[in-house]
């Protein structure tokens, strides 16, 4: 049977100063993904390997890691896409390491809490009427599985302590702002409190999104634009607020 070599970063910070790469030879099966290789290692070679995984179908967002330097879901990275070359798997570098490939992403729970919640307009007639088109618009952002690969790849988060919440959280704000019956506008919060101004739209987040959300074009840029209008241009504020009102009916 064909095998492939998977080089996995191993490090238990509670007992080891430094991490190391360990190579494992794993038999290849048709349709195999990198997560299958990890499961094989855990069950047959080295059960001390730690990683987070659950649904195996690209839906739960647990198994984020960096595969050959690219932030990826292990359950979606097909082994055959590496064409027999060595596969290098490391934990997401933007987050504190727990052990091996498991990282502590809990800072995101705290950021998420701060974003103003869904707040329906008052006095809406029931049952609510919404067009399918409007549903589709907000659904693009609601698709986010919170894998945090976009946070991992974001150089603003990796290299600067700027207070920028990061792409996932802009997507969250956009998902709420795009709800046609939501009463709030989160652009001011995103710019003043969530540091959106630090994003210089390099689009790295969009490239790694397993849900193919157009993070930069459809979430970040519109939230930035709305803020510009809000803060700096009184006429635009007026126009925009009218447009919002009619558009959100």
């Amino acid at each position, binding site marked *: 049977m064909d095998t492939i070599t998977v080089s996995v970063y191993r490090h238990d910070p509670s*007992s080891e100063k430094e991490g190391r790469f360990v190579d494992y030879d794993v038999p290849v099966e048709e349709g195999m993904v990198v997560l299958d290789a990890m499961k094989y290692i855990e*069950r047959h070679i080295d059960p001390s390997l730690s*990683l987070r995984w659950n649904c195996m*179908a*690209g*839906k739960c967002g647990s198994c984020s890691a960096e595969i050959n330097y690219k932030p990826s879901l292990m359950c979606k990275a097909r082994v055959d896409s590496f064409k027999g070359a060595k596969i290098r798997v490391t934990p997401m570098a933007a987050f504190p390491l727990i052990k091996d490939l*498991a990282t502590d992403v809990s800072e995101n729970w705290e950021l998420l809490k701060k974003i103003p919640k*869904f707040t329906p307009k008052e006095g809406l007639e029931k*049952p609510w009427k919404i067009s399918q088109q409007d549903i589709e618009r907000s659904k693009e952002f609601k698709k986010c599985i919170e894998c945090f690969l976009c946070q991992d790849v974001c150089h603003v988060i990796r290299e600067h302590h700027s207070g920028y919440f990061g792409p996932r959280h802009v997507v969250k704000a956009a998902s709420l702002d795009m709800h046609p019956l939501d009463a709030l506008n989160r652009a001011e919060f995103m710019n003043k409190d969530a540091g959106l101004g630090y994003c210089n739209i390099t689009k790295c987040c969009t490239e790694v999104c397993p849900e193919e959300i157009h993070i930069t074009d459809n979430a970040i840029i519109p939230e930035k634009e709305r803020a510009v209008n809000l803060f700096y241009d009184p006429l635009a504020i007026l126009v925009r607020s009218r447009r919002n009102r009619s558009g959100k009916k």
Partner: protein
Amino acid sequence: MEIYLVEVFDYDLVIVGSGLAGLRAAIEAARIGKGKLRIAIIAKNQLMRPHSISAEGGSAAVLYMDEGDSFDLHAYDTIKGSDYLCDQDVVEFFVRQCPIDILELEHWGIPWARRNDGRIAQRPFGGHSYPRATFAADRTGFYEIHTLYDTLLKYDNVDKFHEQFVYDFLIENNRFRGVVAFDIPTGQIRIFKARAGIVATGGLGRLYGYTTYSHLVTGDGLAIALRRGMKLKDIEFVQFHPTGLVPSGILITEGVRGDGGILRNAKGERFMEKYAPTKKDLAPRDIVSRSMMTEILEGRGFKGPGGLDYLLLDFSPIGAEKIKEKLSQVREIGAHYVGIDPLDSPLPVRPSAHYTMGGIDVTHTGFTGVTGLWAAGETACLSIHGSNRLGANSTSECVVFGKVAGEDSAKWLLTNSNSVDLSEGDKKYAENFLADAYRDKGDYDPYEIKRELWTTMDKDAYVFRNENGLTEGLKIIRGLIEKSGKISISEKGNVYNQNLIASLEMKNLVELAEVVVKGALERKESRGSHFRTDYPTRDDDNYLKHTIARRADGALNISYVPVTLTKWKPEPRVY
């Protein structure tokens, strides 16, 4: 290995599990508690990643009575679908509650699909005689979880604990006092002392190798309940979803058939016309799964990898536009996991273990009989699914009865000021349990035991069952239970020790397997998902009753209790 001192938390209510039922229960308890109750929700995974996110097709609710749907019709469909093993009084309550809770989700921001006039759209689903599956594309459970999680964030007095492995409940003199867990990232032992608890840890799906269940669904709450002498009800009824994707078992939603997709055998025939002339591909899941296995066993399937022979799910009648709009995730799954875009070719499918109809025996409010302890969702058995659940009824059940359990427990807490106490003995117990789990007790490998379990369950307790297979299966499983006490785990560290978790989960699974197989062996009839080739008909005279399994003095005892019928008399089940 090093065992830490036990960390103790003190709550009024602890909710174990963060799927639809657990989250909904937490919201309701917080809402009713009005800040007066200290609530914790703890889960084995990160709270927003439960298995509920995998629910795809929809949530059943009667929304359009003016167009011909009715509570009686939803109830009748559910009861007939259950092969008459439902408690009809509970079903009648359930169907009336569904629309209220489905609309509540809308008001919390869920993107339900719409009709042209802007009102909520619904799709047809198996066994339902009206299109009443309310849906959000093909990711209904995912959107429900995120909507509930966002809503829960509005309540400050609910503490959230991610990645906690619960290994026991503290129960003394039939009084719940809290749960014992360890924090997966650190290994820290924790006791969540609480005046009340709600178990919502899901079903027992990972009992099977070929399954739609996520990795972490290992029946932990059910296994603890069994060990603690609580009653488990109707556990032999396991649902096999007709369309698990071969070879991974990943769920392909029934919504595909709801929207017009059809099953074909190797001869290209639409074989469901033969087995269910009226409902065809949208017959209930037990019937479709049996029909599929008949086709495969009679040689009209395709040869699959590792014995996973399969049939084809043909999307072409749906039309490209509708596939793109309503089934985008299924397309992605096909493209990604088998390299097939269902727009171009059919997907290979086979019945895959999907749902646990049984659970902890509870009252209609989810009360377990242990003072202070409730259960909700797939973990609980309210008997609204009987021997076969209809699609789209489980996500609705979780929301409806999660809310009920949250409400009932919160009201009980507010009117009952009894406190619970911990003793040094409890802490010692928590420490010793874990120390024992780390200790080498023999040479058996937990992963090997799990593999053997999967092979046995996939063979002997699958769609078709018989006395010989079940007897042999029971023997093997009892052997595995014995082996599960003689294992060693090689990883002894405290931090994120998956080796330890895998071995504890394995023990839970083998003990539950005995309940499934023993219940199946003793039910000498065929009803719903439980089909005995040696007793191929339903036997209402002897088995129109619920199975109760209870462990006492080391032995597993099976007994039966009556089914509650209101206005629907059992009749032959024809579709």
